[in-house]
């Protein structure tokens, strides 16, 4: 595992010191991910609203596209590189690149380093980006230093089960940030999700290449969600949540499926706030 380059940590520390003398808003460039752009724009809206509410200046470079992860995971590294180079260019000057996804975030932070390991021209760019990439909740908790994400004070209370998605947990190594933010949110009660760290069975193309295995994993995840007694299931990845929502919807289960940003933003299920 390549460690996160220390430049990012130093940048963070310096930024914090500067803040003591003259508070300056953090500037985040949003890498929104294709799945949110194309299928769940309301999640992107909640991400932007939450970041802004926490005092972050948000910018959305419109020339961004896919990070290349689906191609990389299928072994097509040449095609993945085309998209990766584009992403490196788009975010070359960004202070922080904020990604509302553990798996796309891992692509930018971890797998670009592997993708360009043999390319001395691109590797420094990949390393630079790697140090500036943060998953959305990680950015709020670790960089901005948010302890309470706020959110709507009114509205019904929710019991929320948090599913830690695999790449967020094991590639980006983000474990506590989403839980801390969710715990601090008003009218949110965290439920205990059994076998929380078990994969939901999405795995990108895995879900359609081996549906018989994927469906078994999904069925167990749904069973855990129901056992948790939660009325809402949340995660930091819309890929996993699309998968989970697919089964919730098919089986007409009384469970809302929301990205963490939507929970923090106080959005109702499937609403763009």
């Amino acid at each position, binding site marked *: 595992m390549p460690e996160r380059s220390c430049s990012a940590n130093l940048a963070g520390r310096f930024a914090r010191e500067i803040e003591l003398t003259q508070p300056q808003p953090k500037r985040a460039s949003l890498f929104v991910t294709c799945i949110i752009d194309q299928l769940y*724009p309301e999640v992107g*809206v909640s991400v932007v609203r939450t970041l802004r509410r926490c005092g972050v200046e948000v910018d959305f470079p419109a020339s961004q596209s896919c990070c290349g992860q689906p191609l990389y995971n299928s072994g097509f590294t040449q095609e993945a590189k085309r*998209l990766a180079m584009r992403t490196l260019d788009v975010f070359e000057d960004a202070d922080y690149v904020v990604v509302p996804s553990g798996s796309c975030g891992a692509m930018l932070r971890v797998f670009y380093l592997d993708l360009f390991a043999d390319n001395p021209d691109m590797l420094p760019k990949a390393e630079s980006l790697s140090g500036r990439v943060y998953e959305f909740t990680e950015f709020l908790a670790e960089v901005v230093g948010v302890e309470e994400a706020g959110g709507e004070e009114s509205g019904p209370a929710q019991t929320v089960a948090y599913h830690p998605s695999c790449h967020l947990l094991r590639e980006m190594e983000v474990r506590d940030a989403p839980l801390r933010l969710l715990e601090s949110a008003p009218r949110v009660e965290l439920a205990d999700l059994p076998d929380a760290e078990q994969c939901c069975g999405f795995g990108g193309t895995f879900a359609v290449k081996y549906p018989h295995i994927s469906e078994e994993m*999904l069925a167990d995840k749904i069973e855990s969600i129901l056992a948790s007694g939660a009325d809402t299931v949340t995660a930091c990845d819309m890929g996993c949540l699309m998968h989970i929502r697919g089964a919730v919807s098919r089986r007409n289960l009384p469970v809302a499926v929301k990205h963490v940003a939507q929970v923090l933003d106080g959005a109702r299920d499937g609403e763009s706030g």
Partner: protein
Amino acid sequence: MAEVATREFVPASQAAVQDTQLRQALRRAGSGFDGTRREAIAEVTPEVWEGWREQARRIKEHTIAHLDYYLAMLEKNVTAAGGRVHFAADAQQANAIVSEIARNAGVRTVTKSKSMVSEELGLNHVLEALGIDVFETDLGEYIIQLAEETPSHLVAPALHKTRGQVAQLFAEKLGVPYSDDIEEMARVARIVLRQKFLDADMGVSGANFLVAETGSLVIITNEGNGRLCTSAPRIHVGLAGMEKVIPSLQDLAVFLRLLPRSATGQRITSYMSMVTGPRRPGDEDGPEEFHLVIVDNGRSRLLQDPALRESLYCIRCGACLNVCPVYQRIGGHAYGWVYPGPIGSIVTPGLVGVAQAKDLPNASTLCGACRDACPVQINIPRMLLHLRHQQAESSDYNQRTASDTDALLARGFASVMSSPWLLKLGRAASRAMAGPLAKDGKIGQSRLPLLSRWTRARDLPIPPARTFRDVWRDELSRGRG
């Protein structure tokens, strides 16, 4: 070599997920092993555990990088202790070596302690064809030998069988009254096997470790059968993959902490046997001959490939199987060869050929649980990605097994995603196609070829009228939210 059925992965795994008895057996064993493993780590503290893992990793990195040196040292020291070392390039050669040892000594009965390499070689059938009686003495191996099956787990070969199935098997094959009492079944096996230990003229064992500096073969068991196999018969043949060598006894100490805890959650194993050469003058027991057969059988291919080399660090603890969400749903047999689960999905293509086993590297969500559980920090997901990369883009046509359709789709996807125009066009097309398929704002079960693979069990959203970038341009870019 053992039969290779890796091409049957899809039908075999489809059958496996339907098998409720298998699922029951897997659930019990998987959560049991993994639970005790976690407890064992918690007991020593995760910090100490990480330190051990790093030590083990460094030892393996060093040894595999200097494998020729340590194998030569091992050979010298085994020979000095009175043993004989044989190097086998492939399964056929290894089987021939063991057959010749048996033939020369007029062997009629062989007892075996658990050895995955022996499974890999298909040794039992070769010996049986020579008219030799072969008895597995590890209880799990004995069960699957009776059932004429292959192991489904690295540590617990009969894990796929429920207690009732074993009771039934014993009643049928051994002619004992049906009893599913575990004590009683173990008692029956003990009575049968005790006589075999006394009858055997040759014992065959695997090796958990080979210690180069002393020329010792180390085996770890919980049943004591390994000790009987290696000391009672007049000949002992040890089988080991060439990656099993470690430099010193000091290194062994590190692995003796890691292996039992990772495999079964035990702090220490019940039996640890070190065999250094045959019986010496004045010894009360021990074999007259000691042979060590070191097997390559494709391992040097893994060694030569820097991206797959670390698969040779594996100590066969099975922890990656116990945490793997895929293995836990389909069991070991579906993988189609001797080594199942995450590590098997690397080792099997390496040993039997990438083209033969093209499903194995793909049948994973890359969730990474295996890497976290591995006591030697083997980065299994990264190697799965490497194998997928070979399938998609290798310059060796034999390894490039991805279909032309997949390659075309990949190129198409990259082109669409690189061009705002094509993306808009693609989106308009998918919205137009989604229209007739949609009901209540979503796409339900569909019969269309690719789509049906998603919608069998899950609904699919329809792309909304506006993308996020539309919303950003129209509303968000101006305001502060």
